[in-house]
């Protein structure tokens, strides 16, 4: 419900608790019964460069970010300088009065392009080139500027506490920022305290101090500024069981649910979070009270990561790896081996900005065609893409089922936006989950691992768990021994590729695509654009423009019929993608003969906001723009 959401943003230097502050704020809002959608932006840097998180809060499910900020929480100059422009008229900015004198020109970490733009704006409108100037500019257009003396408040809290080092006080700035925000928004203090308890639960001393910080900050800010921006986050009545988690945890839990018991990986952003999380959960309880475990191994490179996973997969273990573009590039030779030797394996591919090192911590959907075609020669693979945090969970189970059923590599496409997206979800429907094992050899007869069958599926054996067999990346006979025979080669290629035809027949339509809406203007997209598209549809619907949206989830085998049918059912086709060339549009043309009337593309490393898509969709339709490159106002 875009119109019913508010947007809160916190910014600061990396390493100063921005992310933790945002998570605590999001959790506090969720405790109060709100839905959350959080989006993280950060640099490829450990400490010092600017990062920010936008938390969109709603009474109903939130699926995307807003670009206009209702309340900006800051404790440094760069956040004010960079983001004050995004604060809506009537919104608010929490700032530390100690920084008002800072010159924008001398903020060392602020990027030059943005700095020039900010300075130009201030000059043009007649304001000083300082934080004070930026705050005045905001104030003059109705933004409430809310000074919060961070150091004084922290000192006050420290006086009540024992053993807190004065030199270390500023680390609690994030808690001051979120407490002040809660006070302005009249979010009940108890939710903030509970959230802080969850964050610091294990560290008693830190917890006690931060609770004192909350007590010190909340009341004075509330008395003076409570409700000043006209928004009150009063407790919402809800009986729904709800969870708040980021996409990488959702995907990891799906992997565990689906039976993954071995994951090998090489550290790479943004896939490493999933692997680290799995390692932290390497032992877990089973429903019958028994002990389960997963081996998570950090390999020397991505080649080794997928190689180890394949070795484990050959034993009948459900095995996987997770990576992003550069790592996937290294994996492609092994991918061909998996296809040729028919070994079930799941590769979770978290896309990020490419090519090469590209934008390592930023979002992009640039690897669709690479996931589809990466590797030499022709072999069957399944490519499945998830649209949000919730889908990532169910799809992680599905990916493992498909890999084992069809004995091939499954690439589960996610992206940086989903990885770091923080989202409230209803309780997962655990009864809906099914683990479907593959077809295994049954006793009797001479075993041939690559027996040529009508379906293309040859019953599996496993290392140590069944008949012996041979496997090779060379072309091979039914036993898995090398052959260069032309007739056998042809039959084996046909056998392997037949599995994709079978998959195409067997996989239900509602897994291949999701269709939303019934309008005559059709949007086609894939992956994490789902949320902003659905929210944009809702807003455009309220303005009288009905849209249909086809989310393509299965990329290979491509849902030709579904895409054709969708194209027939609408008057115009708009493809929305976060890449330069419209990769899904190209694929739809190649596979289904469907051509895009309009492309809305974005490749600046930042996800779409729904408002941006509202503008973009209106514009391509009104002005009949064939290819529109999108960007938000005041993107940082």
């Amino acid at each position, binding site marked *: 419900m875009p119109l019913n959401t508010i947007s809160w943003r916190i910014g600061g230097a990396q390493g100063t608790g921005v992310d933790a502050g945002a998570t605590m704020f999001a959790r506090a809002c969720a405790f109060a019964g709100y839905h959350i959608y959080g989006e993280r932006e950060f640099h490829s840097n450990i400490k010092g460069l600017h990062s920010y998180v936008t938390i969109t809060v709603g009474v109903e499910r939130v699926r995307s970010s807003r670009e206009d900020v209702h309340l900006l929480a800051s404790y440094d100059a760069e956040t004010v300088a960079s983001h004050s422009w995004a604060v809506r008229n009537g919104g608010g900015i929490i700032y530390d009065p100690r920084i008002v004198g800072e010159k924008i020109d001398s903020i060392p970490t602020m990027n030059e392009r943005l700095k020039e733009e900010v300075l130009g704006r201030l000059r043009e409108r007649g304001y000083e080139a300082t934080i004070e100037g930026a705050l005045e500019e905001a104030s003059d257009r109705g933004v409430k500027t809310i000074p919060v003396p961070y150091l004084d408040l922290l000192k006050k809290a420290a006086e009540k506490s024992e053993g807190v080092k004065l030199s270390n006080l500023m680390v609690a700035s994030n808690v001051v920022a979120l407490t002040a925000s809660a006070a302005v928004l009249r979010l009940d203090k108890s939710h903030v305290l509970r959230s802080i308890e969850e964050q610091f639960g294990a560290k008693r001393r830190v917890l006690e101090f931060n609770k004192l910080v909350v007590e010190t900050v909340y009341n004075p800010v509330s008395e003076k500024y409570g409700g000043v921006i006209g928004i009150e986050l009063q407790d919402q009545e809800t009986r729904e069981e709800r969870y708040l988690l980021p996409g990488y945890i959702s995907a990891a839990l799906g992997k565990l649910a689906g039976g993954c018991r071995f994951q090998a990986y090489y550290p790479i952003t943004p896939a490493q979070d999933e692997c680290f999380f799995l390692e932290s959960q390497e032992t*877990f*309880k089973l*429903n019958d009270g028994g002990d389960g475990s997963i081996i998570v191994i950090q390999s020397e490179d991505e080649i080794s990561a997928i*190689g180890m996973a394949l*070795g484990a997969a050959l034993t009948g273990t459900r095995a996987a790896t997770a990576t992003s573009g550069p790592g996937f590039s290294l994996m492609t030779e092994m991918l061909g081996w998996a296809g040729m*030797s028919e070994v079930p394996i799941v590769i979770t591919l978290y896309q990020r900005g490419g090519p090469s090192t590209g934008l390592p911590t930023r979002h992009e959907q640039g690897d669709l065609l690479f996931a589809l075609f990466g590797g030499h020669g022709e072999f069957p693979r399944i490519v499945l893409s998830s649209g949000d945090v919730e889908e990532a969970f169910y799809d992680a189970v599905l990916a493992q089922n498909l890999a084992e059923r069809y004995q091939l590599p499954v690439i589960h496409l996610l992206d940086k936006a989903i990885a770091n997206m923080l989202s409230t979800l209803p309780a997962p429907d*655990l009864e809906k989950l099914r683990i479907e094992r593959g077809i295994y050899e049954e006793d009797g007869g001479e075993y041939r691992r690559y027996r040529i069958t009508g379906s293309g599926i040859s019953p599996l054996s496993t290392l140590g*768990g069944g008949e012996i067999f*041979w496997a090779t990346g060379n072309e091979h006979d039914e036993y898995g021994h090398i052959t260069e025979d032309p007739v056998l080669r042809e039959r084996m290629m046909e056998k392997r590729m037949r599995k994709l035809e079978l998959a195409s027949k067997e996989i239900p339509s509602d897994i291949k695509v999701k269709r939303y809406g019934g309008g005559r203007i059709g949007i086609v997209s894939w992956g994490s654009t789902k949320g902003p598209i659905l929210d944009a549809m809702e807003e455009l619907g309220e303005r009288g423009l009905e849209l249909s949206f086809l989310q393509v989830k299965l990329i290979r085998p491509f849902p030709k019929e579904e895409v054709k049918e969708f194209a027939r059912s609408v008057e115009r086709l708009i493809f929305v993608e976060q890449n330069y060339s419209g990769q899904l549009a190209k694929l739809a043309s190649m596979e289904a003969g469907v051509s895009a009337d309009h492309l809305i593309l974005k490749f600046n490393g930042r996800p779409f906001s729904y408002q941006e898509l509202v503008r973009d969709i209106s514009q391509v339709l009104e002005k009949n723009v064939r290819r529109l490159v999108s960007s938000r106002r005041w993107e940082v």
Partner: protein
Amino acid sequence: MKAAQKLTPISYKTDIFVEWCPGCGDFGILAALRAALADLNLPPNKVAMFTGIGCSGRIAHYMKLYGIHVLHGRPLPFAIGAKLANPELTVLAVSGDGDGLGIGAGHFVNAGRRNVDVTYLLFDNRVYGLTKGQASPTLPLNVKTKALPKPNINDAVNPIALAITSGFTFAARGYAFQINYLKELIVKAIEHRGLSLVQILQPCPTYNDIHTKDWYEAGRIYRLEDEGYDPVVRDPAERDSKKVEAILRSMEDDRIPIGVFYKDETTPPYDERIRARIPSYPERPPAAQEIAGEDGLPVVDLNALLQRYRVR
């Protein structure tokens, strides 16, 4: 396969035509390997062998066991993954010198850090055979084998020294045509608890006209134990001195020592390190875990895992 049956070298023979060149050292290695497995009486369905690309890689098809012929340079990652997932398997990895020390050198070094209980056989003929005789990483500087247009411009790596400094806990060197001795080395390597390397010197009768059978057998080779050499680390305190001794021995080049250079069972293998973190690992390694109930529902207690993230 009846477990009680006494296995012989023939038990591991397939009927695939062995396509190595006449006189290839690989024949000696194949005979020694089959004999070693028979000596250990290992049922074929308890042995998984991962081989790389090159002449050596073909051996997977000549052995009746799980024969997995992977990619150039990559047998070790596969072997490690399989062994960790199903520790009941005896796992062998096979590389040629180019496979293991050229394209696969990163895996070689990093495998040492983990000390997974895998036996790594390095077939070393100092040339790339299947691509017509290029210099491999073990061919010495300035040596010109017959296919090379010019003498070798690169220096050679020493597999034994590299293995020991990388953390392999067993390093041995054999010669392909001392089959019985090689068999004994392979048996010791398989019995060793931890990552073991057997470097196997062998002629390539087609492309290496320098290190020929005659060259090897002209009195150069001697056995370490004949000179009273003791490779065994009995106390962690003597690891370093034993390593230094082994490395020095491995560098001799006027005479060629064969035998066990280094053996250390005081360093915990990877499975013990896992067990310290996952107590149920020995009974329920990945391959032995049930993942679904009869109804197909996951066995994992997801509610317990989700609890941390519950907000309402």
